[in-house]
């Protein structure tokens, strides 16, 4: 492995590796105090807790929709030769989607604001904190918030009788990974945004993801387009979370998790690099 000394001119000390390894989580090693930004978010939400509470309601409405709407109309659905209640099938997919949505919205609009308007990150970078701390810290903040929602979501599923297997408790850590991956991707995207209107592009991505991730139908129903579904990172989250709720674990799920890990690492690396380029000129 080639690895020359840390000589970035600004002293952020990110070691350079050979190009094949460049995308690896070098940023993770350059980060020292990402939790300080999480602390800052906690400080903020302690007073603005209403903002937190409002985030619980959207997924709740989804669940009600599933419970009283689809489930009664659609009836049962067959997965791998076993028949399941449609509500058990779709609720975990909504859990995965809401982890994605929450994280993405936290990491785009909020980050754009701090990056371009309030200049929070300029302030932070004047301290011993690094661009990697900013990237990782903000992503972790979004994950933390998303975790609260995921726990509430699982709890609500349980109350509504939509839990099919006790394995569903493992869906919370999986949703944390989903949130991390999409927060990282979203924050990376936010560094490329030039105006508020660019947020529309985020919607333009998340809505198709929601529709083409085997959220509402099994992947087989996409027919010859099912390969396309494989390209959606959300699909890989849906597969695992759904598997947990139906009590069906498969080795291939490790592959699904790996896709999310890859997205998380790439998003993190791109974000840290972009922040460095934008703010440390």
């Amino acid at each position, binding site marked *: 492995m080639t690895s020359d000394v*840390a*000589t*970035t*001119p*600004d*002293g*952020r*000390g990110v070691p350079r590796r050979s190009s094949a390894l460049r995308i690896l989580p070098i940023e993770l090693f350059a980060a*020292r*105090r990402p939790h*300080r930004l999480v*602390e*800052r978010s906690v*400080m*903020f939400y302690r007073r*603005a807790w209403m903002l937190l509470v409002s985030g619980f309601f959207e997924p709740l409405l989804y669940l009600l929709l599933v419970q009283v709407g689809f489930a009664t109309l659609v009836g049962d659905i067959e997965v791998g030769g076993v028949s399941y209640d449609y509500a058990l099938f779709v609720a975990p997919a909504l859990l995965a989607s809401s982890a994605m949505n929450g994280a993405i919205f936290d990491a785009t609009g909020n980050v754009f604001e701090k990056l371009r308007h*309030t*200049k*929070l990150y*300029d*302030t*932070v*970078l*004047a*301290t*011993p*904190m*690094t661009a990697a701390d900013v990237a990782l810290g903000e992503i972790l903040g979004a994950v933390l918030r998303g975790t609260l929602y995921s726990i509430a979501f699982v709890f609500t599923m349980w109350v509504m009788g939509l839990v099919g297997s006790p394995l569903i408790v493992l869906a919370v850590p999986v949703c944390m990974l989903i949130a991390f991956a999409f927060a990282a991707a979203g924050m990376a995207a936010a560094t490329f945004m030039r105006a508020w209107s660019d947020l529309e592009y985020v919607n333009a991505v998340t809505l198709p993801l929601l529709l083409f991730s085997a959220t509402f139908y099994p992947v087989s129903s996409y027919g010859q387009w099912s390969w396309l579904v494989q390209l959606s990172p959300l699909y890989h989250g849906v597969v695992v979370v759904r598997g947990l709720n139906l009590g069906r674990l498969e080795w291939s799920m490790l592959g699904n998790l790996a896709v999310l890990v890859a997205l998380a690492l790439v998003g993190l690396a791109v974000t840290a690099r972009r922040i460095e380029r934008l*703010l*440390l*000129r």
Partner: protein
Amino acid sequence: MHGNWRWPASLPCRTVATVPPSIITARDLRKQFGDFVAVDGIDFEVEPGESFGFLGPNGAGKTSTMRMVGCVSPITSGQLRIFDLDAASDGAAIRARMGVVPQADQLDAELTVVENLVIYGRYFDIPRAECRRRAAELLEFVQLTERADERVDPLSGGMKRRLTIARSLMSEPDLLLLDEPTTGLDPQARHILWDRLYRLKQRGVTLVLTTHYMDEAEQLCDRLVVMDQGCIVAEGSPRGLIDQYATREVLELRFVTGDVGDHDAAPAVDIAGIGDRSETLPDRTLIYAHDGEAALAEVHRRGLDPVGSLVRRSSLEDVFLRLTGRTLVD
């Protein structure tokens, strides 16, 4: 007003025993943005405990220089050492020992006044209880204790500036960088700030500041460099620079433009030989003389009739005019 204010134990107060190395050493320091040269190979040194200024007009390269010293902007070439560490490779370690007051306050609008200070201390890994203690002391120091639990937005410009200075002191820095600390503030707010900075200076904090106000440079700087278009054009103490580049006094004359036609040609001929030299500006003529009153008498003796005249001590403004042919603030 602040007679019984006590120096907080947490603010730096030190005695220098041996001859220490310079706090900042810059050699042939350059900063380029693409093809544009913002800082064009400057050399300077800042000694511990001194108060050092960059005086120059907008666009001179002051902020670019400060950002390089603050280790938030990579140097294009040259050498920059701070605390005897290399700015290029030890940025985080340098930043840990430095306080920064950026040109724009950049306060955290989502947090309260005191939270702004506490979280800033946390960025330096200072324990939370200690952050709270320092925040309370510093709010006292910048006279914002009553506003501690308010949001930042409604504060006046001067208050925000003071809060930013308090924030920069949370880490008890050895070196304080201030980029245009009082630009845009009203005179009273400026004087409060100068007073606070003067106290810091007396306690041995090394101050490095930029300004385009000559009175600020005269008030606060032991030593300064005059910057113009990315270059240092002069260096010295405020008094030394004035002695070197200006006369003791300046006679300012205003003529009615209509009387003399072209505003520069007519008086320039008539005042030739009065004082050491003269400078003609769009709105007035300056005559540099050791004795301003004598020069004015000579102007009258020659039959010139300015509509206004003023004898004043020369200032850094005159130094800048002499060196660049332009005024500092236009």
